[in-house]
């Protein structure tokens, strides 16, 4: 054994230990669903304030200051550029409502029972957007978002565990392979994905990535979505989560994430065109949705 190898090995080992210690504990990725954007009208305190009653339309003053709203038809050669016939109740001078419209924060009496899910999907809790008070997870988005490359963690901690054990005891122990990409250096992942294969996935998702219905702010946010894929090329719906975002507020990122999620799930229903023999490489995917090039369209 030469000295260089020893030094290099110790150096790498030190780096590994340092890296392991530096990583903060993180929750199970499946549970770290970001806080959903509350429906604006739900906040009870905002709604308990009784709105002032809407004005009552007075009986028509004698000079009928507010007469029949149908204007006398303009002379035929003058333009009345009505694009569409007015709604039928237009001709009636409608009374303004007598009472305020009070949005009621009370949730509907029975939530619909969770529809039956396909077998491979994990429990619905991970995917529910509506905030549920009984969920134990303190869905603190900050920890979830700060975690870089979360997909790599399981392997690293497994290796670190193994390393720690090895250093303590003179027992040879292979690192536990409880995470699918078995850390054995000889797993059959095949050659790296080709550019064409990557483009195929890009195009397939992009087709469904519709940010027509987004606020102007949310349409500018870049979101990173982490997901697990099953071997038939379908995304595991329960595994999807917002891993990172930049270029906007948390709320805007949530909207952008939902659009990205819809894109992934809509176009992935039949499975994405990914080579099964390279499954180990695309079993976990981090998809970055970057709208910068779409701006100004």
């Amino acid at each position, binding site marked *: 054994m030469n000295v260089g190898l020893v030094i290099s090995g110790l150096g790498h080992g030190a780096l590994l230990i340092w890296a392991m210690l530096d990583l903060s504990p993180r929750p199970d990725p499946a549970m770290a669903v970001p806080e959903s954007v509350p429906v604006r009208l739900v906040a009870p305190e905002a709604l308990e304030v009784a709105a002032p009653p809407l004005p009552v339309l007075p009986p028509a003053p004698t000079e009928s200051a507010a007469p029949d709203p149908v204007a006398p038809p303009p002379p035929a050669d003058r*333009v009345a550029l009505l694009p569409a016939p007015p709604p039928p109740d*237009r001709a009636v001078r409608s009374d303004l409502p007598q009472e305020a419209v009070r949005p009621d924060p009370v949730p509907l009496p029975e939530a619909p029972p969770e529809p039956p899910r396909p077998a491979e999907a994990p429990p619905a809790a991970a995917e529910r957007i509506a905030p549920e008070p009984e969920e134990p997870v303190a869905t603190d988005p900050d920890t979830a978002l700060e975690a870089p490359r979360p997909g790599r963690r399981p392997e690293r901690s497994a290796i670190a565990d193994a390393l720690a054990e090895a250093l303590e005891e003179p027992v040879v122990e292979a690192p536990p392979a409880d995470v699918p990409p078995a850390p054995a250096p000889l797993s059959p992942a095949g050659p790296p*994905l080709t550019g064409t294969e990557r483009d195929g996935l890009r195009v397939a998702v992009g087709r469904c990535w519709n940010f027509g219905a987004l606020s102007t702010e949310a349409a500018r946010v870049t979101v990173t979505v982490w997901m697990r894929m099953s071997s038939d090329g379908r995304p595991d719906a329960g595994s999807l989560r917002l891993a990172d975002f930049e270029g906007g507020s948390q709320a805007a990122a949530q*909207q952008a994430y939902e659009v990205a999620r819809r894109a992934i799930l809509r176009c992935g229903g039949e499975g994405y065109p990914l080579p099964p023999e390279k499954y180990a490489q695309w079993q*976990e995917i981090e998809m970055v949705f970057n709208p910068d090039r779409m701006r100004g369209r």
Partner: protein
Amino acid sequence: MLRVVLALVLLAIGSASVAQERGPLRIEITEGVIEPVPIAVPDFLTDDPALAARAAEIAGVVRADLAGSGLFRPIPADAFISQVTNLDSPVQYADWQAINAQGLVTGKLIGADGKYTVQFRLFDIFAETTLGEGLQFTAADTAWRRLAHKVADAVYSRITGEGGYFDSRVVFVAESGPKDARDKRLAIMDYDGANTRYLTQPGDIVLAPRISRDGGQVLYTSYATGRPRVTLIETETLATRVLDEQPGSMTFSPRFTPDGQGVLLSLSERGNTDLYRLDLAGGARTRLTEAPSIETAPSFAPDGERIVFESDRSGNQQLYVMAADGSGVERISFGPGRYGTPVWSPKGDLIAFTKQHRGRFHIGVMRPDGSEERLLTASFLDESPTWAPNGRVLMFTRETPGAAGGAQLFSVDVTGRNLRPVPTPGPASDPAWSPLQE
């Protein structure tokens, strides 16, 4: 011993390096599409057969609101596979996915004692979950359109993240007659053109109204006294009050201050027009600009701290921003052409304006510092934009040329898309959009 340890370390390194290559596949998506989102809004349910027609109408208004925004595309009912028969039954997501609905709104109408309650739920079809919680709204049955608008606002803002804007009204000038003898009267309507009501009689010129925050008052310029004078009208009682009675004065272009206590207006004396603030209660007047040029068409920032206005002090019509007390005037428009009618977005992030250049008129937007100017429309004559409560949509006047020309209201999305006419009983101009109603 050392050998074993080092072997493990190497193994670990080896695995780690291989595992590093085996991390999640990283892919960047940069090309998407911009299309209206297909959404299904089946007719709302009701237990009372007598309310079935009304329940269907309410769903119809929700569909019209969503479609009218340009961001959604309601799917026709004859394409539905599943039928919704109960608001609490589980959703057959596969059926809605099959027709490519991305969202589903189910609703129910309950009526009693002259009041309606509308309940609704919103579902994300491909994520197979509800979005938000169900909500319900209650109002007098004559306000059924407002209930529909409230539902549409909730759906719209939950999906897009923008504030809603459907439960709002627009005050405007209804026009009739030829260009050289035009009759004008103040009118108010729901933003979608329904429930139009007139506030003044024809006969005197009325111009450029503005509505108060609570919708109870409208400021406008009236020629009832033979000269332009800022006038206040109560939308309930239709009582009017001329705000500036100084003989020989001319006032116009009135705006409510954000606190509703005052009026910002233009006053013309000896040919010079400047901005003044008038106290509504006491009538005290404060001069805000003092320049030999024309200063008019002001607009408050939503926080009331600053005012944007037009002035020709540089030689032609341009936009300026100043503090609410008149200090710190800075020019913000620098492009070729003339800029006027600035209006500050309720979100505070943009100023919309009218631009004239090379014989064409445009509605445009820019940041409050003047940067990122974008033109949204172009025509013979587009002018006087007004912002929807969510700061995303603009309504403005478009006039056609010639002896047969007339004015009409149009709306456009701040992205420049979805330009569409606003239905009014006849020709119309000078719209002013109210905030969302309570």
